[in-house]
């Protein structure tokens, strides 16, 4: 075991590669050229943005036949210059993910499991719950007799995951309903 690592590599370079074959009486063949195809070949590139921290790394999605094939950093984004952290590097795995919720799920009071429901059921039932709470608990005046027009018993939390446009409609909808107890990740 006295062969040094460095010495060993040199030794190999000197002729080991030929050793076994020449012993068999064969010529050493030139190394084979290697050819491959790219897994993203033929895909369309669409620009997205990493949904984790606020470095805002731009990401190029490779989309083929409506499927997200691959994703990687956009070199044109001056902040990241195409690089990504491990979470950003797993952007595709975030989307193409068997753990995602793909259907509306409903859990009745006291139930031990979820049941799948359609969007109509969910939206109409939730609307009824909000309206019931609002009609019951809406406060037009406070104890001092000042007009306050608010709903004290329903609150909303989230989300810094939303796009600016989504935030804009959310705030408009919530305050329109009289829901003012609004908070999100800016405060954790």
């Amino acid at each position: 075991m006295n062969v040094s690592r460095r010495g060993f590599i040199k030794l190999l370079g000197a002729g080991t590669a030929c050793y076994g074959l020449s012993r068999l009486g064969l010529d050493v063949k030139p190394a084979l050229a290697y050819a491959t195809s790219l897994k993203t070949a033929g895909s369309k590139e669409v620009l997205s943005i990493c949904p984790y921290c606020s470095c805002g790394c731009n990401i190029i999605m490779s989309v083929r036949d409506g499927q997200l094939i691959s994703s990687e950093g956009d070199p044109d984004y001056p902040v990241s210059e195409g690089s990504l952290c491990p979470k950003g590097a797993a952007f595709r795995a975030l989307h193409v993910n068997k753990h995602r919720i793909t259907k509306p799920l409903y859990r009745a009071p006291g139930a031990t499991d979820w049941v799948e429901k359609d969007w109509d059921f969910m939206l109409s039932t939730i609307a009824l719950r909000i309206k019931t709470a609002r009609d019951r608990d809406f406060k037009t005046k406070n104890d001092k007799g000042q007009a306050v027009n608010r709903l004290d018993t329903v609150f909303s939390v989230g989300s810094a995951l939303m796009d600016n446009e989504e935030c804009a409609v959310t705030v408009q909808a919530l305050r329109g309903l009289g829901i003012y107890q609004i908070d999100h990740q800016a405060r954790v």
Partner: protein
Amino acid sequence: MTNHWIDIKNSNAVLIMGSNAAEHHPISFKWVLRARDNGAMVIHVDPKFSRTSARCDLHVPLRSGTDIAFLGGMLLYILEKNLYQKDYVTEYTNASFILGKDYGFKDGLFSGFDPQKHVYDRKKWDFARDDKGVSLRDKTLKDPRCVFQVLKKHYARYTPDMVSKVTGVSKQNLLTVYETFGATGKPDKAGTMMYALGWTQHTVGVQNIRLACMIQLLLGNIGVAGGGINALRGEPNVQGSTDHALLWHILPGYMPAPLASQQTLADYNTATTPKTNDPLSMNWWQNGPKYTVSLLKGWFGDAATKDNDFGYAWTPKIEPGEEYSNMFMFDRLYKKQMKGAIFFGHNPAQSMPNTNKIRKSLANLEWMVMGEVHKTETTDFWRGPGVDPKKVDTEVFLLPSCHRGEKGGTTTNSGRWQMWHYKGIEPMGLSKSMGAIYTELFHAVRDLYAKEGGAFPDPILNTDLPRQYDPEQTAMKVNGWFTRDCEVNGKKFKKGDQVPSFAFLTADGSTTSLCWLYSGGYPEVGKNLSKRRDHSQTPMQAKIGLFPNFSWCWPVNRRIIYNRAGVDVHGKPFNPELPVVAWDGKDWAGDVIDGGGPPMAQGGKYPFIMLTEGMSQIFGPGRVDGPLPEHYEPAETPLTKNPFSSQMNNPIIRWIMSDMDKFAKHGDPRYPIVLTTYSLTEHWLSGTDSRNIEVLLEAEPQLYVEMSHELAKEKGIQNGDVVEIESIRGKVQAVAMVTVRVVPFKIMGKTVHLIGMPFAFGWTTPGVGDSTNRLTPTVGDPNCYIPEYKASLVNIRKATKVTELER
């Protein structure tokens, strides 16, 4: 961020404190290392040695919760060694302002303290003023009651000896940091401070950041390339979601939320519009009424008219002095005062402090609506550990939300760049964007009111929200448009034209804008500036890496805010090598100048245009807990006395009281170890996304606790053992990571151990561990009520039975 990510490269000294930038914002380190390549010294001040520290010139371990002591010592050093930038301090800050006779400070308390209500009367901290109400100044900075002299006196107690004993930082390390960073007080040098939740998540969080700002102002580091106070924002759009006010206390664009005492729009405007008689102060917030009316016009459309106060009466009014922050909302829920909740992209059962209480309180809801991508500890709380679903009466609606690549729209990065992302694939399954879900939900309620009537239907029926969520259309509406043909600032516009910028918003109902800060980002139909991909820039801009034509940045595409303070009164850059803006005698070159108009010496205005006095506030009378930062111990502290005063904790903390809100005693022998909590690179915050990405879970599979070899030896713990961490509120199991990267501290002559844990692991991912926040207390900063996750008290022992980490 006052500056932006790329600008970090321009720094001569980088102080990373209250942040683990390399782990939580890895891309930031591209620019930190470029600064280092250019000769900058990079310093990391943080309780533990992390991947950030590994790439810094110096890591300085400090006891969690003692940042004010550390920075107070730096401020004193800067004053004593005359390292501050004199012209900047006298011309651009309120250091020369004379304080009124009522200001005082004694033994940890400022004047105006009401010991019954635990609030300050902030009027006691006002400046002395002339008959016009303009603050008196002494530009020699010699008046004993000028801010500069008061500052000197206040921080005289923060000597290296004292700071070293309180923080556990060696005197040598203190002086190295002070000297290095203090050297950026030279006009042509700049230092940047990078912070994150390590500064905010304390009962003195706001004052941590204020003190950092004060130092940056003394050193003339605000408004210059390579300077600034840079919050590294941790959520993809937390900048934007804050700008758009997903918050109870503000309306979009940082306008205060209306109070019950402000019954009319005129009341609101009077109360919220600052006034000054100083002709040199731009006092930008005097424009507030224009933004409010444009917002109301955006919300209520044609229904908002001058005659009905633009629908002001339809907006909810809150009680003055009442707290609605999430800790308080959940406390109300725990006390059964809440009936319904809407949670979108948020996992409070995992990420709020004292999650045992949060989890219990969720069962008090009649119904809960959630928009999520994955099941979380919140969506499934009713079947969580130790919960019998049959006994939980909450009705739960879980709406599948789609992911980023499945929708278009904008997010705003930490440097305030608003950038468009495109829809690449269809939403998975039946999932929808949160914008679509909210829109449809609102209209479902609205349809019921239109059909049946009900309690005060006016605001619902008058809300002008298209039935179909369209991000492009919404982006146009956020920017704002003209509601009629009109002339503003001498320019004629047609009904339906986009507003060119917020300078064209009006208070008469002729304009709309859902957030005035973003006005200018979509200035013409078909001209969505957030989609710009243009790298072109002038050589001056290129030198500092400004990229003014890539995407768009609020406000008005200004990339470095307060840049007017980066030049002298003649408009000449303090650092001629790396100018942000420069006056050429006629015009400004470089970045978009703050406020417009010529330099001060030519009749221009004071540089800090958002402040009423036009001067930045070294003395800050606006904060509820004092005009100058003062060291108080964390709510839970290993000490029995605050070495700086007899006031142990921040005196203004509003303590939340319930049978589940217990606190360890000061210096509690049952819980002698300081716990700090944090995130980690491979997971994202509470882990709801990243735990479901198997390649990330592979890299960081289970909850761990980092501790020193010394503590491990004391407790008989081996690396890799499963241990139990216990606070007065709960217990958590984790795998011990015994490391040289955590060291015991010597505090006031006594050894204090600190341990650190991530909070990314929860029970819905089997065998990874469960919420670290079962340990943390429901207490927070009294200005903003961000919880104190960073410093609480615990004990630790080897687990006798592994129950949470079988994998």
